[in-house]
């Protein structure tokens, strides 16, 4: 069975579905027996969700006007 260090290295790849089938099976076998790495997996999901939930920072109205004016001048 793979060690915790190896398992943790693979967690984000696992969540991204970027692992090879054999790597995935080894990790799942490890997760079935290791509470610590299950905690790491859960936390990895939470960190990814944090990144994904970060909001869009919109343009201010003056910023939008500046950019629109800039684009108009490019076309002249």
């Amino acid at each position, binding site marked *: 069975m793979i060690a915790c260090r190896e398992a943790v290295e693979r967690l*984000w790849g696992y969540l991204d579905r970027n692992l090879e089938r054999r790597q995935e099976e080894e990790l799942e076998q490890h997760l079935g027996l290791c509470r610590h790495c299950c905690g790491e997996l859960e936390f990895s999901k939470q*960190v990814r969700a944090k*990144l*994904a939930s970060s909001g869009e*920072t*919109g343009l201010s109205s003056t*910023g939008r006007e*500046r*950019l629109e004016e*800039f684009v108009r001048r490019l076309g002249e």
Partner: protein
Amino acid sequence: MTVQPAATRVPDSFATLVAPHLDYLYAFAYKLCGERTAAEDIVQDALVRAFRARDSLRNPAQPRHWLTKVVLSAALDRERHERPHDQDVPLEDERFSLFDTLVEEDPFPYSDRLHLDFLDLFDDDNLTAAIQRMNPSYRATLVLAYVYGYKAREIAELMGTTTGTVLARLHRGRKQLERALWEYAKQRGLLKGESRR
């Protein structure tokens, strides 16, 4: 006369082409650079590049992917010129685990959701500021993958590199992100030791 459906209608000027995407481009640039004035500068630089290269746009009805690539390139070029990389969070210890560090340091001793409490310290502004401590290529890769949902092969195409390099950047970027979040929280005094619940 043939009337094209609105979704596929080709804009008749560069201004019309980019106008619906300005908010998106600015938000993307802000995620990459973490500073509002710089984000506007990056978008302006990208618009000049896009205007000059407008003949290379293959699908004028859907220019977002192309514009994303141009903004990414402008942002990374700016980083290379203006920001020394020794400001990046070091990666000398790849074994650093934020999960374990939080358990060991226990910044919220009375919390029963320690790890979530830590993440709750980061509103959008704090999160954007924290990730500025990362290597620009790693940061851009993580932003594309986890904020905008691009696949590794799509990021490789956007960044002009291989899928293998993107996977390596995702891996190293995650380690650097964990360190960046921890060090930012410590240095900004976000960890006060008291329970948040």
